[in-house]
């Protein structure tokens, strides 16, 4: 219900219920995307929480979007990239820790190929991870990825191509 021309009434119970339903539906998918890009459960959790907080504060924008799901995905992806870049610029996490995290997986629960893939995947840049995750993991087209990542479709294809080349090389050397 639109309470005024300025925007939605957040205290409206119907509006709050709709928001909760949207969150319940989208949270798991957003978490998977964030985890794929960040490869850290805690950071992925923070990224999703931050996305949901932004969504709560921008309900006008969220529910007026053509697709609230796509709106949330775009916010989450961009937050993951910018947040990770912020941490990386301060030297966190160190490269040795990334390599150890990839090698200390429990072999009993993951196949060796998955371990190798994880280690290789962590070598990709954030944008390469995002492009590959959205394309191969969630079925978005190049054009949709471009909208979500805020770049051109050609740039998305470049990220995917370079990411795959890195994966191929890393897996071959493994």
């Amino acid at each position, binding site marked *: 219900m639109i309470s005024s021309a300025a925007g939605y009434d957040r205290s409206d119970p119907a509006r709050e219920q709709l928001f909760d339903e949207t969150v319940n539906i989208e949270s798991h998918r957003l978490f998977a995307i964030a985890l794929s890009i960040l490869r850290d459960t805690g950071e992925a959790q923070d990224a999703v929480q931050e996305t949901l907080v932004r969504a709560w504060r921008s309900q006008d924008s969220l529910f007026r979007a053509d697709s609230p799901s796509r709106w949330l995905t775009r916010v989450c992806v961009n937050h993951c990239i910018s947040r990770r870049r912020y941490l990386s610029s301060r030297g966190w996490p160190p490269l040795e820790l990334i390599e150890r995290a990839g090698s200390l997986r429990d072999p009993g629960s993951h196949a060796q190929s998955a371990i190798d893939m994880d280690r290789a995947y962590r070598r990709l840049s954030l944008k390469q991870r995002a492009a*590959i995750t959205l394309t191969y*993991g969630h079925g978005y087209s190049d054009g949709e990825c471009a909208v979500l990542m805020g770049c051109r479709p050609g740039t998305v294809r470049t990220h995917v191509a370079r990411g795959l080349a890195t994966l191929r090389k890393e897996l071959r050397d493994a």
Partner: protein
Amino acid sequence: MLDVDDRLESDLRSFLDAIKAEPLPRQLAEFRPATVRSKNRLLHRFVGAVGIAVVAAAVVLFAIELTGHPNNGSPIPGGQSAATPTPEPTPPSPASSVAPAHSPGTPPYLDEGPAPPGARVLIPVTYGTGPMTLPRFTASPTDNISIELGCLSTSAAVSTVTVNEYDPGFVGDTLVGQCFGGSGGSGGGGTNGLGKTVTMKIQAAPTEKWVILVYVDTGEGP
């Protein structure tokens, strides 16, 4: 989608599917953004409170500092320093050296004002601060010596300027100036009873400003 070999694509999809199969953390499942308060808003409030406290402290300090100072008069216009120059002993000058106009921040010239025309100035207009020995002069026992003195107290307490208190050569008023929380002054006079050289001494508090003029009124003016 780009061409990619089957094995790599298969491994990649399996890898991403495994990530998608990760359970949603309980904290995230129970997370409700409506209960989260803005960090920025809290930060802004904190910064605002600190700013107000700093301004208030500055105002209080300024007020304390202001009340700690007595009323020293208004600043001198034209960039003239408020500090009174220390007078150098000077020889008696002719009567034409009249007193300069009184300016704010310096002691007023009281009573008679500048030496009357035709007067013989023994000590020209001299500004000073605190105790000081004035230039010596000689006058005859019949000379009517006039002393004009102004002072500017820098404290709320009564302060006096005493001249010639200990010189036996001078016979006349000794208490010639009194200041009370601001400007004040008086005049005095007498004769050089012994006809000898007279030495006048200013007895004043160290921070007390004063001005003095000593002359002999010859009565030859127009």
